[in-house]
């Protein structure tokens, strides 16, 4: 248990005594929010999931890329 406490205090004291780190963590969190919430949800849907029926992705991709006989 002692080592668990030590690890806890390593992180606890570390985060508490951050100076420049606070700014950097803020930037990281804002960036992650923009990437995962704004960009991923609103601008980067999974094209195949949106257009192909579930379980029929292979057929959908083949219809996208294969040449077929008349």
């Amino acid at each position, binding site marked *: 248990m002692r080592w668990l406490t030590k690890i806890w205090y390593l992180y606890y*004291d570390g985060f508490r005594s951050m100076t420049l780190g606070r700014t*950097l963590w803020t930037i990281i969190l804002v960036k992650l929010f*923009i990437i995962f919430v704004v960009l991923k949800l609103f*601008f*980067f849907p999974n094209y195949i999931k949106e257009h192909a029926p579930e379980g029929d992705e292979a057929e959908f991709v083949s219809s996208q890329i294969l*040449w*077929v006989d008349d």
Partner: protein
Amino acid sequence: MVNLLNIDLAAVDWARAQFALTAIYHWLFVPLTLGLAVVMGIMETLYYRTGKDFWKETAKYWQRLFGINFAMGVATGLILEFEFGTNWSNYSYLVGDIFGAPLAVEGIVAFFMESTFVAVMFFGWNKVSKGFHLASTWLTGLGATVSAWWILVANSWMQHPVGQTFNPDTMRNEMTSFADVALSPVAIDKFVHTVLSAWVLGAVFVVGVSSWYLLKQRHLEFARKSLRVGAIFGLISSVLIMLSGHHSAYTVAQTQPMKLAAMEALYKGGTDQPLTLIAGISPFRQPDYETQDEPPLKLAVPYALSFLATNDINGYVPGVRDILDGYTKADGTQEPSLEEKIERGRAAIAAIAEYRGMSEGVKSEGVKSEKFATASGNLQTDSSLFTLKSSLEENMPYFGYGYVSDRAQVVPYIPVCFYAFRVMVGGGCLFILLFLIMLWKPKTWNYWLALLCIPIAYIVSEAGWLVAEFGRQPWTIQDMLPTWVSVSQLGSSAVMLTFFLFLILFTLLLALEINIMCKAIKKGPETNNP
């Protein structure tokens, strides 16, 4: 035959531009992380061995700059994966099984190694033993470098697809040998060359920042010693990168001869080929490689290209026209002409279409999987399916050529490859000179040169990526998938919108990083010597 491809060509270009923009921005952060990781490890090792607080403060200073860069760069590469799913869905689906393993390993390694040891490195001073702290600092760098390995494995597979077979039932490439994918010669070369280039950039950064303090007459002892460590580290990395560069060129010559021909503007190849130093190639248009034998005003080093590409000063190096027309390789085998490749590519496409058509027919009769299993399992209950599979296996390496209709489509844009290659090599030579000067007799004007070399190092590093990525055009997977087939059927306006969104976001992030970094540099290390 009917072409079902209904791709907006502008969308392909915008998707390419967006991917390039994201990769270029991401690559602004990565090399400094990898380079500073070694520098801070060296500084802390000096502290560990000498016990002098000076080295501790020096290590802490470079770790702070590492932290700033790390925080700014973290997760910027994730956007590339989003782009795969949205803009490059066909490509993404076809390679999903190959990329899954390396990227999963990368994610786990990056998360556990970096998040654990970064925390000990920044929070652990005076809390853990000196030895454990030193190990954490080195393991932070190792974690970042191992992450780079897996990303480069994925990239290398696109440049030289190995260790997979295409399954027409699932329409995916499926991994048959993880070892072949992870340890392909292209992956090893790319990893070594890329990491060494990052080390050189890190060394230039350290030398440049130290020079700034010397110009400002601040933190003189710190600056002189950091400059010396940076210059020695940079010089060793530069010598190693020359060796790895030679090996990379050899591997490119074996696996992507068109890339090498474009890098060299070699229109008509042959034996005893010279290496072009410079030539009169317009940066704004594709040169006439079909009728010219070589570019005008060519200044070259005799035999050097043959040596670079074949390890033999008399070796045969194919030019653009040779590759298009077909040529005999050094081992005596014949490289097919473009026309043959197109024919074989179309045969592969037709085989898949026919196979899938029959598959659907059998599926509707309710006996699909058994019948196919027997066909591929040599029981040959259905000989036509077996024939189709054989045809597919034979022609699949040329699958992508089935979508090619013009010779110009398979020739990368030569001016970019040609000049980016020269910027990369020329920059590398300049840095060797810089490191030598800094070790020999650093003077005021050298400090200015060192400062100027920081942005140059970034340009050179990006030029390396341009060579690698422009040189393989038009392929997203070498010979197997061209860009215009890889892309989703999106309108160009959607991709254009996210392109500019990224441009704004990344530029803000970069401006923020430069601002925070400059403030940290101005503040300087917390050594006794102001």
